[in-house]
Structure formats: C-alpha cells, structure tokens
C-alpha cells in the first residue's frame, strides 16, 4: 500500500532539484502568483518611510481639542471591494468635527 507520506517523499525528491532550477531561472509570469515590493514612495528605499523616534517637536498640528465624529462618506473615492456576501463597499470614511 502506498501511503500519502510515501507519495510525498517521491514528489519531494524530484521537486527539490527542479525547484532549485526554477528558482535560478529568470522569474516567470504566473497568473496565481504576483509579487509586489514593499512601501514604494517614489525614489525611496522603504527604510526611509519609517515612523521613528526623534528628539524633534512638530509644528504640524494634528491635535484637536474638540475631537471628531466618524461617519461614512456618501460618495466613493478610488476603491470598491466586493465582499464574500456579494455586497460592495467603498473604502473611504469621513471624519467631521464633533
């Protein structure tokens, strides 16, 4: 009787060599695999886009004493997502001063 493990071990032995060969060949386009590099602000290495410790203060005001109400935006901006239940959602939400 051939166990799944036996099948697997045969598959593995043949696979490792060909996997290596494929990995060293130029990248092939495949519909089911798609690669994207990390954070890509134009001309920047992605290490530059880090939020990091600093000893500086800031003059950009992100502080608001009155707080916000968070509501859905009436109109969609750039992205629509069709959920598994078939309903469509737009990404953008709105904050209004509360």
């Amino acid at each position, binding site marked *: 009787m051939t166990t799944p493990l036996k099948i*697997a071990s045969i598959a593995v032995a043949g696979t490792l060599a060909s996997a290596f060969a494929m990995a060293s060949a130029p990248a092939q386009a495949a519909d089911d695999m798609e690669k*994207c590099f990390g954070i890509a602000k134009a001309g920047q290495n992605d290490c530059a886009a880090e939020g990091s410790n600093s000893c500086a203060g800031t003059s950009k005001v992100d502080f608001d004493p009155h707080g916000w109400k968070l509501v859905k935006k009436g109109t969609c901006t750039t992205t629509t997502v069709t959920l598994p239940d078939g309903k469509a959602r737009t*990404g953008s939400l709105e904050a209004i001063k509360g």
Partner: protein
Amino acid sequence: MPSLEQNQSAFVAALREPRQDPPSFIAEPTPRSSLRRFNVYRNNVYAGLIGVLGARYPAVQRLVGDEFFKAMARIFIDGHPPHSPVLIEYGSGLAEFLRTFEPAADEPYLADVATLEWRMHQARHAADAIPLHASHLIQLDEGSAARLTIRLAPAVSLIVSEYPVFSLWRANASDEASSGHQTFSGAECVLVTRPDLIAEAVRIPQSSAMLIAALLEHKPLGAAIGSVLAVDPHFPLHRTLALLIAQKAIAGVASQDETFEETPS
C-alpha cells in the same frame, strides 16, 4: 508645591484630556497664555504617534482617508499607548482594534490590510538570515527529504484573508500606486518575505499558503506536502518551493540525519 510624581501624574492627565485646562502649577508669563503653549506638548505626543502609525499603515490611511485615519489613530493611541520607547515596536494592535472599531464596521477588510502592513513592517526589522543554498537540498535522497523540517527566515509570514487583501494593499500602499477607480473581489493569500533589505509581498494560491502554513508549524516536508495533496492533488508544489527559494525564505533545514545551514566564513 506638588511632588515630582504629583507633577508628572497631573501633566500626563492633562496631556490625555484635551478639554482639561493645563495643570495649575504651570507658570503663566502673561494671563491665559499657557493653553496654546501646553498644547504644543499635546500636539507633539499625538502628532508624533499618528505620524508613526501613518508611516506604518499607509494603505489603511489611504483607504479610510486622512481625516478619518487621524481621528481613529487618536482613539487607538489613547487605548493602546506605546509601552516601550522603541517606536519600531509600536502599532501592532491596530488590526485587532479595527475588527471592533464600530465606525469602520462596514469595511471588514481593513483589519486584514492592517495585518499585512504590520507584517511588512515586522519583516523590515526581522533578524537577518542567510538563505540556505539550494545545493544542500539537492544532495538529499527521497527519504531524507520527506523527513526534513524547513526553518523559514524570521521575516517570513503568511496572511490568509477572505478579502482581496493583496490587491487592496498594492493599490493603496503609496500615492503612486493607485490609478483611477478600482474594484476588487475574492479571497487572497499573501507571503511576506525580506529577500535582502526590502520587504516583499507575493500573492499566492490558497494551496501554496496551506503548505507554507504547515512549514511555519515545523511539520516535516513530507507530511506538509501530504496534507496539501490530500486537499488539492494538483497544487503547484514545484512553484511554491521555487518561490520560497527565490524569495530567500528558507533559512535552514533539519532532519533526523543532519542539519544544514550556512555557516559564516
């Protein structure tokens, strides 16, 4: 005169409650001039941390819009302040927070996009690994190969989502990424790796994700492959292993017989 502890407790309470007056022990150079001065500290604390979260979650920020993101971040920061002065470690809880954040309840995919962004951030700072040279794998006979346990690099992680998380992230991760209105649907799985210095995400088939999940659980290669074949006999085994090698995701292998890993020379 308050003690130093009383001074700092009152200072922190006033930082966190923007409607509260600055602490009374602050000297006022001129009457009523201290509010905007004290607000510099409030702003530094919040603007700084909101900036950290924005740099860490650019796709979430673009998906919800700047104003919503800032307001949401304020609420997140109050409930989840940093507990270490190392801000590299800050923001891990945003995905969990989003799952129960009522104003974003209609956008259930946001949490998975946040998870992908956090994993990319972790990958950027993960410990370095020297990828295993494939020649070590080719030397193995069938039996040894099946018993191998593959050790994946510290930067490697997997996101399995019922939403089009990769497409959403890619379309929103930078200002340049998005072009016009786009519609996405379907479930997506993503492999995160850091082949050299830059973290990368690869959308992969669900069966490939099953194999990688089994390897992340340290299952022997044969058993891992067997478990996926039982579900999907035609799954792209060769290409999944080739992808792991190409993405420098394999940091070492161990078997009952021998252990292979690159040793620094």
